[in-house]
């Protein structure tokens, strides 16, 4: 293992210390339990929006705390869901009397821990709504699985719901919007290399030099299939077509498109993927109204990418364009 760390056990703590020192204008970091919270929280009368999950996906979620996006984020250990006491304390810290939305990615651990936290907060009289994001088309949604994983759409949902909360919408409205975004968003990812969890010290899986994993999860979980490496254009097609066919996205649809890097792939390659994605969308009569290309929901140092398409109406586009000021996304302010 070759990493820029001091001690595997200190990775999350030292990262959070760095975040606190780097962005004092945006966030405060609370330790024990760990959460990152907007510097001006709680905001009276505003719905609080929080999310959380294992660390190792930066900038998600902590990098999205700030004006117009998340009020707080709860980082767990690397690739491990945070614990209910973190979410419960974060919920209390952002509750401005209008209730709190929990945006939860669909992983068994995240769902169970957020469920316990919501029960604790509601026992304290705080109104909590939870929306589970499950947008990964690589996974079959059936009675026989824990359901689809939550991936790229989470980033878009956090931006859009954060903007809606900032406008003063009610908890019910923000939660409904979040469900709409989840219903309209689809993603799929792929890996060129594995990733190494610091405390594990060894790559999570072996991926030979000439192979790739299609449908990879953001924790290095295997996906649909392993196959010989192909060109960027072929790979883009292998991700984009299942996404388009799943919703399905139709001719005439307007979308927000994200090409996301898994952490170890340079932007130069992500733009090559975006170029092909734009061509595929055009061929299907789908208009990309907004785009996001970069590393937003990563998997440590894994090389690879994911594609997310979100069907967008005027409301979603306006909320997307609304001002945001976080470490990871910043525009309009």
């Amino acid at each position, binding site marked *: 293992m070759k990493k820029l760390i001091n001690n595997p056990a200190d990775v999350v703590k030292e990262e959070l210390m760095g975040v606190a020192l780097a962005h004092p204008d945006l966030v405060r970091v609370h330790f024990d*339990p760990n959460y990152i919270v907007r510097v001006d929280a709680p905001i009276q009368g505003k719905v609080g929006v929080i999310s959380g999950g*294992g660390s190792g996906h930066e900038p998600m979620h902590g990098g999205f705390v700030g004006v117009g996006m998340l009020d707080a984020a709860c980082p*767990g*250990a*690397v*690739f*491990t*869901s*945070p*614990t*209910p*006491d973190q979410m419960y304390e974060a919920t209390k810290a952002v509750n401005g009397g209008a209730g709190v939305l929990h945006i939860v990615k669909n*992983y*068994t*651990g995240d769902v*169970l*821990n957020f*469920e*316990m936290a919501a029960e604790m907060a509601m026992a304290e009289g705080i109104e909590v709504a939870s929306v589970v994001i499950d947008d990964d088309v690589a*996974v*079959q949604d059936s*009675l*026989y*699985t*824990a359901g689809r*994983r939550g991936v790229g759409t989470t980033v878009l949902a956090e931006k859009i719901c954060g903007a809606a909360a900032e406008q003063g919408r009610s908890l019910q409205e923000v939660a409904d919007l979040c469900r709409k975004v989840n219903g309209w968003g689809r993603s799929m990812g792929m890996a060129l290399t594995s990733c190494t*969890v610091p*405390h*594990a010290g060894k790559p*999570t*899986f072996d991926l030979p030099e000439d192979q790739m994993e299609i449908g990879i*999860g953001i*924790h*290095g*979980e*295997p996906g649909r299939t392993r196959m010989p490496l192909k060109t960027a254009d072929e790979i883009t097609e292998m991700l984009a077509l299942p996404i388009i066919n799943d919703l399905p996205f139709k001719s005439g649809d307007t979308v927000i498109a994200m090409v996301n890097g898994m952490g170890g792939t340079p932007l130069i390659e992500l733009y090559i993927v975006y170029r092909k994605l734009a061509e595929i969308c055009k061929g299907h009569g789908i208009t990309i109204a907004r785009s996001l290309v970069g590393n937003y929901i990563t998997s440590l140092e894994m090389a690879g990418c994911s594609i997310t398409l979100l069907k967008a109406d005027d409301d979603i586009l306006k909320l997307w364009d609304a001002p945001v000021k976080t470490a990871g996304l910043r525009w309009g302010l």
Partner: protein
Amino acid sequence: MITRDDILAWLKCYRQALGENKDYLTRLDSAIGDADHGANMDRGFAAVLEKLPSVAEKDVGTILKTTGMTLVSTVGGAGGPLYGTFFMRAGMALDGKTEFTPQEFLAALEAGLAGVQQRGKATTGEKTMVDALTPGCKAMREALERGKSLAEALDAAAAAAEQGMRDTIPMLATKGRASYLGERSIGHQDPGATSSALMLRCAANTLGRVQDPA
């Protein structure tokens, strides 16, 4: 009778077993999960052992509930809420007691298992910890009903849990992160079933040494 000291010895034994098997559990989890089960359980039980001195003079219910709460706040993942719920429910079943019968201990294990199933919405055959705990509890109940000693009953429970653990190998996972693999989850032993089998083996190695009343 089983005493408070026996329960403390059980928890210490389990902590040690998790430490020794940390890499093994993580390896199992790498194959079908996200490579964190060993580290998470090790971290959680290290925290439990730090907490134990503060409740060592309390009743067993308090000790087990404290264990559960500590796991919930330190383990994370699915293991935190599931093992946390297991120990909290077991503790509720032994509330106020400092010593109790094998039957009462069995009832506590069964309450813990029911809590796990409720929180995780899982049943047997889904390649989870339920597949080790269910046959473990069943074997212990049958042994006690046949008049076997606590040592024999716990040994039967541990053996049945270990068999249940091995029986997860050919199973297709339908709950938890391994379920995302579909067919590819077949052929791997479930890490949660493995840590549960270890827990019952520790019970046999500690509580099982308790003298049965003549």
